[in-house]
């Protein structure tokens, strides 16, 4: 049809569309590599015995990396808001204080079976290595999201 002769984006040079298509078709090798590395790290870290030096290092190492990134430059992917609605934020504050209070109340009672803390509820799940590895992976990704929002 005659419409085929009309350029869809007359203000753009013809080569640009081709470049974009090629870029989209590029295999995301770097991301896959980083993802595989994080999964492997999580699996290895999940295999460490609690209360040992290796278990501590498995947490401190990513902590140091994230801290260095955060100290060096602030998050830039999504600009941080200059102000937030105090009333709106208060809902979050109430929930977080309630969570801390609920946890502290259980902790004060020595986290007995009839009044367990959140930690006492989660710890048995973390005895299963795949679950612990998944937890560590989520923790690593959340740390990355905090410094690279």
């Amino acid at each position, binding site marked *: 049809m005659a419409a085929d002769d009309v350029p869809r984006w007359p203000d753009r040079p013809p080569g640009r569309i081709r470049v974009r298509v090629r870029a989209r078709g590029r295999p995301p090798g770097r991301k896959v590599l980083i993802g595989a590395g994080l999964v492997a790290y999580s699996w290895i870290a999940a295999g460490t015995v609690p209360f040992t030096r290796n278990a501590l290092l498995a*947490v401190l190492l990513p902590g140091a990396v994230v801290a260095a990134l955060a*100290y060096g430059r602030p998050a830039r992917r999504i600009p941080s*808001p200059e102000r937030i609605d105090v009333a709106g*934020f208060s809902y979050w504050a109430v929930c977080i204080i309630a*969570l801390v209070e*609920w946890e502290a109340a259980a902790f004060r009672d020595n986290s007995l079976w009839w*009044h367990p803390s959140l930690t006492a509820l989660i710890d048995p799940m973390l005895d299963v290595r795949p679950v612990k590895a998944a937890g560590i992976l989520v923790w690593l990704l959340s740390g990355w999201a*905090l*410094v690279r929002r």
Partner: protein
Amino acid sequence: MVTRVLTIAGFAAIILALFVLEFLGRRKGSRIPTLGEWLGYVMRPRAGRLLILLGWLWLGWHYFSR
């Protein structure tokens, strides 16, 4: 038994409320900030970044290292 169930229900209710707040915050024109928005706001100054990241590090240490 009832006390244990009540305790667990309390945790579940608070965590559910946090998800509801995130959902409400994502609605157009909402006054409730999303988790990302208020964390971003708190993390604007370097001291805020340090505080939040120390909390993140503590969570990792508490659940995965001990």
